[in-house]
Each structure stands twice: as structure tokens, then as C-alpha cells.
């Protein structure tokens, strides 16, 4: 039929390095994944989970008048307290487990649903599939957790009281700190996302490896300097806008400069994703048996 011949002439060319094709394909994957994973009822639990720190800051700032007064009167202390809440609760718990949930399910969820092969049957490089899946997880986690971070910060500044808060934000170091916190959150999603995507691909039961990573990241402060650098939290920690004390047991290691931390995290992420795209060639068709 003549329409067949016409059709094959509009077909996208599968040349060696076709970035515009790959970007189009990544967008197509994003569209499918975001709609499927982050739009429906299934995602509600995740949103509630991510709201916990915001609710906590809200309670501290508004419901507990002492808390609010404390923040107002002892601003440096309050900032350090927030730094600890940020690192302990938001980074190490919310972002960590949120990314675990989001990224480990990107492939596993489809293996369970037996729908992954629809991607495998497209004219699509496996690396592009990994990238598309990863970006969809990244988009969801970055939106979610920067909102968590911003919401928590909002209540901190709200409790500080007007006009001191506005002065601190716009005439003082406030804005820089806020942006740094947001940046750390984004980097955390980037790094943890890659780690959990790979864990979800390599392990049939990813819970145990995920908990091992969790233990490693929590005990990071005890580790000797060399091992310390093999972690994500180390780099995030050194980026903190408020210097945080890791406690008396912590090993001392000279702070890594942001000029090293940020590129390190990005290179690490790229490496892990590269590993994932090698691995995915070996992922076979979800079996019927």
C-alpha cells in the first residue's frame, strides 16, 4: 500500500548520535512516567510523607508560641536547630526514603505490572530509557522535596517575625542560605536517585541493600576520612550553609569545597547511570512463569 511507503519516509532516522531524537524520546518517557507514577492516588502517600517536616515547622512556629518566641529571640540557635532538622529529618529521612520509593519503583513497578517490555519494544536506546526514567524520578523528587524544603523554611522565617525576617532574607545572608538549602535538596535527589535506580535494577529484593545504604549514610560521621568520601551525605553535609557539629565521636576531615562536592556528586551520578544502562541490557522480558 502506498501509505506504508509514505509512512516510512517520515520515520525518525536512527543515526548514531541523534540528540534531538533522544531528547524527544526522553520527553515522551517523562510524560508517561509522571502521569502514571506521580499524578494518581498512588502518589498521595508520598505527598503526605513529604509534608511531615513542613507540618513540624508549622507546629513549632505557629501552634507552639514558645517555639516561635525562641526562634525570634535566639535566632542563631534557631538557625542551627533548623540546620539539624534539615539534615536529620529532611535530607536523611524524607529525601532518602522518598527517593528510595520513587526511584526503586521506576523499573521494579513495571516488572511487577509486566509492562516494561513496551519500552523495550520501542526504537529506543536502552541508555535513553534509563535517562528518561531517571529524569522522571528526578522531576518528581525535586519538585516534591524542594517544596518540602521551601515550606519548612517558610515557617522558620515566618516565626522570626516581620520585619526582621524580610531584612534577613533580602538584606542579610538569608536568600543565599535558602538557595543553598534548595540546592542541597536537588543534589540529594540527584545522587540518591541514581543510587536507588540502580539498586532497584540490580536486586530482586531491594529493601536490604537500601537499608545498608541507610546505615552507611548515618554512620558516615564515624568513618575514616577516605571512606567518608564514598557517600552522598558527606558532600551534602559540607555544603550546609550553617556549620553543623557532627558530635564528639565524629572523625575530622577537612571540609570539601563546593567546587569539588558538586561536580563529584554529578560525576558520581553519571557513573551510576552508566552502570544502570549496561545492566538494563541484561534485564530480560518479565516472565510468565
Amino acid at each position: 500500500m502506498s501509505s506504508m511507503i509514505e509512512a516510512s519516509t517520515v520515520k525518525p532516522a536512527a543515526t548514531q548520535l541523534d540528540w534531538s531524537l533522544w531528547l524527544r524520546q526522553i520527553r515522551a518517557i517523562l510524560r508517561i512516567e509522571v502521569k502514571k507514577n506521580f499524578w494518581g492516588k498512588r502518589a498521595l502517600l508520598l505527598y503526605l510523607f513529604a509534608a511531615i517536616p513542613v507540618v513540624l515547622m508549622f507546629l513549632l512556629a505557629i501552634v507552639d508560641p514558645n517555639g516561635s518566641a525562641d526562634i525570634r529571640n535566639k535566632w542563631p540557635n534557631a538557625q542551627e536547630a533548623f540546620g539539624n532538622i534539615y539534615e536529620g529529618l529532611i535530607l536523611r529521612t524524607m529525601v532518602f526514603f522518598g527517593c528510595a520509593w520513587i526511584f526503586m519503583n521506576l523499573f521494579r513497578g513495571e516488572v511487577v505490572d509486566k509492562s516494561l517490555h513496551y519500552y523495550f519494544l520501542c526504537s529506543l536506546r536502552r541508555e535513553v530509557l534509563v535517562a528518561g526514567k531517571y529524569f522522571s524520578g528526578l522531576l518528581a523528587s525535586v519538585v516534591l522535596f524542594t517544596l518540602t524544603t521551601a515550606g519548612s523554611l517558610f515557617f522558620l522565617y515566618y516565626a522570626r517575625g516581620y520585619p526582621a525576617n524580610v531584612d534577613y532574607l533580602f538584606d542579610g545572608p538569608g536568600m543565599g542560605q535558602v538557595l543553598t538549602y534548595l540546592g542541597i535538596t536537588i543534589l540529594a535527589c540527584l545522587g540518591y536517585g541514581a543510587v536507588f535506580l540502580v539498586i532497584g535494577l540490580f536486586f530482586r529484593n531491594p529493601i536490604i541493600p537500601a537499608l545498608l545504604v541507610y546505615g552507611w549514610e548515618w554512620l558516615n560521621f564515624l568513618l575514616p576520612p577516605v571512606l567518608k568520601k564514598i557517600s552522598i551525605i558527606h558532600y551534602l553535609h559540607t555544603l550546609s550553609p550553617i556549620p553543623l557539629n557532627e558530635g564528639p565521636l565524629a572523625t575530622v576531615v577537612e571540609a570539601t569545597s563546593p567546587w569539588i562536592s558538586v561536580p563529584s556528586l554529578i560525576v558520581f551520578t553519571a557513573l551510576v547511570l552508566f552502570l544502570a544502562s549496561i545492566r538494563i541490557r541484561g534485564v530480560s522480558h518479565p516472565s510468565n512463569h
Partner: protein
Amino acid sequence: MHSNIEHRTSQIIFGDVSKFYGEILGVNRVSLAIAPGITSLVGPNGSGKTTLMNLMTGLIQPTRGRISILGISPDNPQELFSKVGYCGQFDSFPKGMTGYEFVKSFLRVHGYSNKVADEKTWRAIERVDLIEAAHRKVAGYSKGMRQRIRLAQSIAHDPVVMILDEPLNGLDPMARAETIRLFRQLAKEGLHLIVSSHILHEVNVMSDRVVLINNGYILAEGGVTGVREEMEEHPMQIMIRCDLPQDLAARIFASDSVVEAQLHRDKQGLFIRTRNAEAFYLLLNRIVVESGMNIEAVAPVDDDLNAVYQYLIGSNGGGQA
């Protein structure tokens, strides 16, 4: 030399391919060269049809041997699936999509623009006759509709090789006839169609070529008539337990559907060999009605071959249809 290369790029070639799932045999020592047209892959459950199709599409890797689809290796999905469409056996879908979204989403993953994807989606949906249901959720479709929307999804990007794993499963006679007509149309457009089925009878009518597979081995391959002939060289053996085997043997030999009959040692049964089991069963029915003899059991003996033979003769195989 030149024509040889041309051959390679117009055929699907299996070169001594084996696939083991650990210890379990999937397919063994398969060598095939498949030309354009409709090729049916026929065999009973677990014979290795899906394994062959998954090998062709790179969803699994062969333990041994080489596969080439029009000169493309299945390890290269980007190139392979610009030419190949695979409609798998499993009734599973990504969550929450309508039929239209399902087809279109993956066209966009292929890299088509919104507009082209939209056009191709409607064309494919029209081909499987699902226009009315296009904007309903796939989860609410009937089994036959789900089968058809998967078919639409696999042909939407205009592949030249279509691999279809039991595509007629779950279709009512109308949809079945429509689908077969669509396959014929696609074959006429010059496509390769590889269609699997349990039942030779079902695909017989449309196939240019049949490949019979059982227990992971290719039993026979060729044009539909060629396969029938080949099977006739291996007559099927059937055992009949009855009270008057000698009488039965005499009556049977009056017809020409049996090539050999042999009395069982205990004189309570008869082995026969036939090239036409369908005719033989009809004959047996008639004898029973006419003579009133007591038949206790009728059972094929030659298991391996028999399983396939059942498909050759169609519906006598015991409710496979």
C-alpha cells in the same frame, strides 16, 4: 556473494540457536530462514513459541547461535524496532491509560512528533476496529478488545516485520476473521508476519509457511502442504482397547485410512497406524454404531508426534480450540 547479502537483509535468520533457562530447555538447535509473507509457528503449550519470539526481539539472549532480523542483530533495539513490531502473549498494560493514550504514548517514545503520532494512532486503531472505544480506559476493555489494542500498538509504527504471539486468542469469530484479513493485507504489503498458535487449523488458512515446534525442537517446516506431507510420512499410532479386537481390525481394513494394525498381546486391544486420524475417528464412530462393540479406550500412543499431529487434524485434539 551479492545475492547472498541481499538474502540476509530480506530474511529472518536463526543460525543454530539454542536457549536454556538454567537447566530448562527453551528451544534447541533451531535453524530457520524466514522469507516475507505469513509464517505460522505452531506447537502445543511450552513448546518454545514465545521463546523463539522473545529471542527474535532481543527480550532474551540466546545461549548459543546467532539471530539476524533483516540483517539487524536483536541486540540493537534502536535499529531493530524501527523495523519490527511485537505483539506479545501477555495481557498486561501500563497503568491507567486509555486505548488511544496507550498506542500514542509509545509512538512518541519511538520519537514521532505529536502530530504524526496522533495520525498513526488513529490509523492503527481503525485497523483493529476500536475507534469507538479509543478514549476509554484499557482496564475496562473486554479480553478481545485488549488483544486488539495491543495489536494496534504493535503495528502503529508501521514495522516491516510483525511478530505476533497468539494474536487470535480471545477473539470472537467476527474479530478473528477481521484480524486474519488484516494479516493478509499486511502480508500483501510485503511485510513479514510471524504468527504463533496452538492450533494449526486456525492459522492454516492464512499461512504461506508453517513451522511446527514441539519440546523446543523444530519438527517440520515448509509450505502448508509440504508440512502435511511430511507428517504423513510419520503415521500416528493409536491404541484401542475393546472386547472384539479381531473383528474391529477386519472392519478397519475395509477402509484405506489405516496403514497398519496390530493385535495387542492380551488380545484385548489393537494398535493401528493412520495417516489420517480425522477420517479414522469418523470410521471408528461408524463401526461402533453399526456393530455395537464395546470400546473401552482410544488413546494415541506416539506422544511427541501426536501432540503436533493433533494440531494438523484440528479440533479432534480435545478442546484446544
